[in-house]
């Protein structure tokens, strides 16, 4: 039986819609890339002959409290805290929040840092799970440990905000490896006289890097496909995604693994929302809303050269849970603050960033699914041109690869963190392979998020980690997995 003509017309119309969507989206990514290039150039020029060592002896930079929530991290916690304490910065304290660890995290800290309990002097401005005790160190006067009942990462960060003394806070995951001068580099907007509400730095993939004493000593791209392809994703997300947004109205996401916030503003919006799956994005969107509604001109720039290293999933099931959770967080946040969508009151955040995240990020998996469904239908009814379809796919593939390769090119032209030619080769290889299977897997898990959100399921999952550096770290089963924010999604 020949299908009716209207079905062909409908198919053609839907095809054009999907095609137009992906064309527009990829073109927008090219605009982001075009915006990121001059930003990168500016940072590169400022970095040349930078006075970083001199900054240590000046009072140009504001004091910062480093907030590090930890949950069941007894094996790595001592080294992590030491790496935070030895960050190169004129004035910073470290507030380690033990979020109800069931292992020996606190005992290891007490022993290693000679902790002693002190009475509480912090005002509980943000509600949190009960704090059991505050500790200070006899060896490091800048270390404060907050021991509290388990409440998740957002709750732990709120406890840290209550205990912090300095006007700015750096939120990091306790198992994130922050480069020694990263905090100093994050201070560039302050040096340039910018009024700042938050500053974001780059998060990179630590899998396969050489790590010693809590520091990445030589960066490599993993030879394992899953970790390697995520290195390309992170490059693309940070080097031209985030950087491009600096010129287009500001980022909606500052990674929970590495971002500085002005404490006054975070407290004013009520701190982190413990019920949120994506507490970092939730906070940044609320900050945008707060600043716009009060007419406060404070930027949230992304700075490309300060780097923190994080471990990415090395197994498909863990990756799937992570991507599904990120997508749920994105959907929940966009829904929660939907009043900002296309609302001129919120300036470019409402008119550019928010619509992009709704139509270009959140709905992308749905459109991609629709594209696949239309292809299947077209093949079934003979409505697909035999020459047209493969060529179209070749073009779609090529366009996607082009964006990834351009991100690798930006990395090569700017920071060149990866040590060898082989690493560059791997990045190129993974850029070529990413659209062939990996993308479809991540799209599938993101689609699952729609189902869970429809069921009202907003719980965190379990994040399995392999560990890095000397000796394997325990596979941490956390209610607050130290993963990055939903920031490496890309629709096409």
């Amino acid at each position, binding site marked *: 039986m020949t299908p009716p003509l209207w079905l062909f017309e409908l198919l053609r119309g839907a095809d054009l819609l999907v095609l137009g969507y992906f064309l527009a989206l990829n073109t927008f990514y090219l605009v982001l890339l075009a915006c990121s290039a001059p930003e990168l150039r500016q940072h590169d020029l400022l970095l040349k002959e930078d006075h*970083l*060592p001199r900054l240590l002896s000046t009072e*140009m*930079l504001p004091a910062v409290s480093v907030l590090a929530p930890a949950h069941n991290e007894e094996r790595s916690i001592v080294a992590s805290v030491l790496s935070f304490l030895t960050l190169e910065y004129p004035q910073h304290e470290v507030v380690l929040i033990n979020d109800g660890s069931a292992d020996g995290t606190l005992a290891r800290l007490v022993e290693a840092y000679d902790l002693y309990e002190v*009475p509480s002097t912090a005002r509980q401005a943000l509600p949190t799970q009960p704090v059991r005790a505050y500790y200070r160190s006899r060896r490091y*006067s800048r270390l404060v440990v907050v021991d509290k009942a388990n409440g998740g990462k957002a709750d732990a960060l709120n406890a840290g905000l209550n205990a912090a003394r300095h006007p700015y806070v750096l939120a990091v995951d306790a198992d994130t490896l922050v480069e020694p001068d990263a905090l100093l580099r994050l201070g560039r907007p*302050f040096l*340039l006289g910018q009024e700042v509400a938050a500053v974001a730095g780059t998060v990179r993939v630590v899998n396969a890097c050489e790590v010693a004493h809590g520091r990445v000593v030589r960066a490599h791209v993993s030879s394992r496909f899953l970790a390697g392809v995520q290195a390309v994703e992170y490059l693309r997300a940070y080097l031209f995604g985030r950087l491009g947004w600096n010129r287009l109205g500001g980022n909606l996401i500052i990674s929970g693994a590495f971002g500085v916030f002005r404490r006054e503003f975070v407290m004013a919006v009520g701190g982190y929302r413990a019920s949120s799956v994506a507490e970092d994005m939730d906070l940044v969107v609320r900050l945008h809303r707060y600043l716009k509604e009060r007419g406060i001109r404070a930027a949230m720039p992304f700075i490309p050269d300060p780097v923190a290293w994080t471990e990415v999933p090395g197994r498909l099931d863990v990756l799937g849970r992570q991507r599904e959770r990120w997508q749920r967080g994105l959907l929940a946040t966009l829904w929660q603050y939907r009043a900002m969508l296309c609302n001129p009151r919120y300036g470019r955040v409402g008119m550019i960033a928010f619509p992009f995240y709704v139509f270009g990020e959140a709905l992308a998996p749905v459109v991609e699914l629709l594209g696949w469904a239309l292809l299947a239908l077209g093949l079934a009814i003979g409505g697909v041109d035999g*020459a047209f379809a493969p060529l179209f796919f070749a*073009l779609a593939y090529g366009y996607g690869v082009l964006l990834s390769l351009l991100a690798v090119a930006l990395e090569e032209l700017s920071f060149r963190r990866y040590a060898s030619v082989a690493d560059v080769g791997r990045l190129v290889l993974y850029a070529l392979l990413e659209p062939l299977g990996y993308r479809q897997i991540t799209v599938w898990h993101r689609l699952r998020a729609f189902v869970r959100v429809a069921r009202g399921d907003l719980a965190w999952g379990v994040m399995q980690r392999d560990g890095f550096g000397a000796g394997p770290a325990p596979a941490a089963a956390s209610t607050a997995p130290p993963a990055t924010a939903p920031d490496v999604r890309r629709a096409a």
Partner: protein
Amino acid sequence: MPNASAGVALLVALAVALGSVLVVLTGTLVAHRVLRERGRDAAISRAEPARRLLAAWATSAAGAAGIAALGELVAALRALPRADALRLVVNATSAQLPRAASAALGAALRDEPWVRHVLRGAGAHAWWRRLEAARLLAIVGGVADAPTLRRLLADPHVAVRAAATRGLRAAADAALVTDVVRALPAQPPSLQRLQTGELCAHPEAAEGALLACLAAPENAAPPPVAPPTPAPPVAALPTVARSAGARSAGALVAWAGLAAALRRPRAAAALLPHAGHADPEARAAVARALGACPSPAALRALGAHLDDPSPTVRAAAAQAAGHLGPAGVRLAAPLARGLADTDGGVRLHTALALAQLGEPGRAALRAARAGGSREARDTALFVAGLSDGALLELAAA
């Protein structure tokens, strides 16, 4: 169907073009890395003699050997590409060289052709060329360069102004110091702090300018300081220079910060009339400055600040009283009242201050631990349990 075949042809053309771009891009990426690594090795070996001489100069600058090495070093730098020489000199003087050695190197380099070329960038359109000039001027500049420094200090790019600020120590004359002090409130906070530090290298001129600014009638510019020599026409420093007499809260905060850094009694005394400024931030800044330059009048003003309606001012006054050490012992009694303050920050700074005042302060803390309000007891217990390092660190913050 001609339309369909035309569409396919178009797609084929696009696919070929895109494929070519991808191949070229991939090849370029790998080739770029290979060539860059070779180029880097060559650059490192090219710069090695100058680097070695610079290290030797850093350790022997003061002696006769250092003087001999300086000539060699200058020649080695001259042989390098301009960008390499600039980077080497700027990085070395930032991180390694003692100030005297840096000054001697700057003087030796001042007339080198590559240095003159970089300094000519002070008038360039591109901000990064002005930035390079400012960075180098901070090393090689002298008083004769004051006009160039003035232009760079008025640059629209903050990074250029910050780099030029480093040149204030060597290249500023009294007129420029005056202008920098007057313009201080117009700078962003980070630059204010940097300029404040550098102005301390010219204490007399900075104090004179500060006194003029603080004494000038509201909304009137302070009397200009005549330059020592007739100055050529140069750029004006930013806007506040025209309305420097206006003691807005922001201006007072900036100038009080300078007074605190200068630690000169006359500057502190000039702040006393502003101790009751309407803005709490300004009162807090004055309190901090008064703590840096103790005098009977400053102690009286600090005592009043301890009872200020604003917790920001009370906390700043308590912190300043603590910095006085035993010299602030007469503030122990009013400070002790602050242990029961409604604001946690005030209580903490009060307890920290008492711990630094000597026996009268410690007695007040013991009394609070034995009785009084729960907040006072907890704060006193907290401070009593602190290690010496933690006490100093908390008190300084």
